[in-house]
């Protein structure tokens, strides 16, 4: 399973708001779906089957 980047939008476990991490797609989708994180880029959102509207535009 490929990795994608997410940016935390709320404190979660040991992460602060704004922390960017690379995660497995499934975990990334879970966190974004829960509103805890945003995909960091549109390509990462697409890779995880997420909504590009919930990610930044392509860097």
């Amino acid at each position, binding site marked *: 399973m490929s990795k994608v980047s997410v940016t935390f*939008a709320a404190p979660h476990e040991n992460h602060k708001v704004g922390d960017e991490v690379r995660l497995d797609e499934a975990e990334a989708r879970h966190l974004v779906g829960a509103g805890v994180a945003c995909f960091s880029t549109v390509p990462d959102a697409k890779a995880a089957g997420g909504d590009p509207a919930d990610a930044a535009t392509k860097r």
Partner: protein
Amino acid sequence: MPLRLLPDVERAVVQFLRAQTDVATLVSQRVSTELPGSPTYPYVTVRLVTGAELVREHFDAQQVQVDCWADTKAAAALLARTVRAAVLTMRDTTHDQSVITHVVTLTTPSWLPDTEVTPPRPRYTFDVQVFIHIKP
């Protein structure tokens, strides 16, 4: 390609505060980004001070200054504590154009009477950081 407009944090905070019963009890709907020319007190102003982009064209951390004006120091203090408590409940809320994921206090309410008028107008001020992104 359409432009991606980042949310207006002042608008989100003003609309939210106007909808809070505890705030409306003290100021009715007198919450805006600027004092009107001849304001009726108490009054709350909400101003975007600065911010930082956390995810390009999507997710920002915005610093918002809230000023709470009233006829007496005690009333201004109560208003500031009430508004601060209300603003902190904006965490994990969805608005017409935005999602606010987190809110933290940067400075607690401080006594800052408005000395531009005579006598000085009682006022407390505080700052919060609002984490906000475009509504998907």
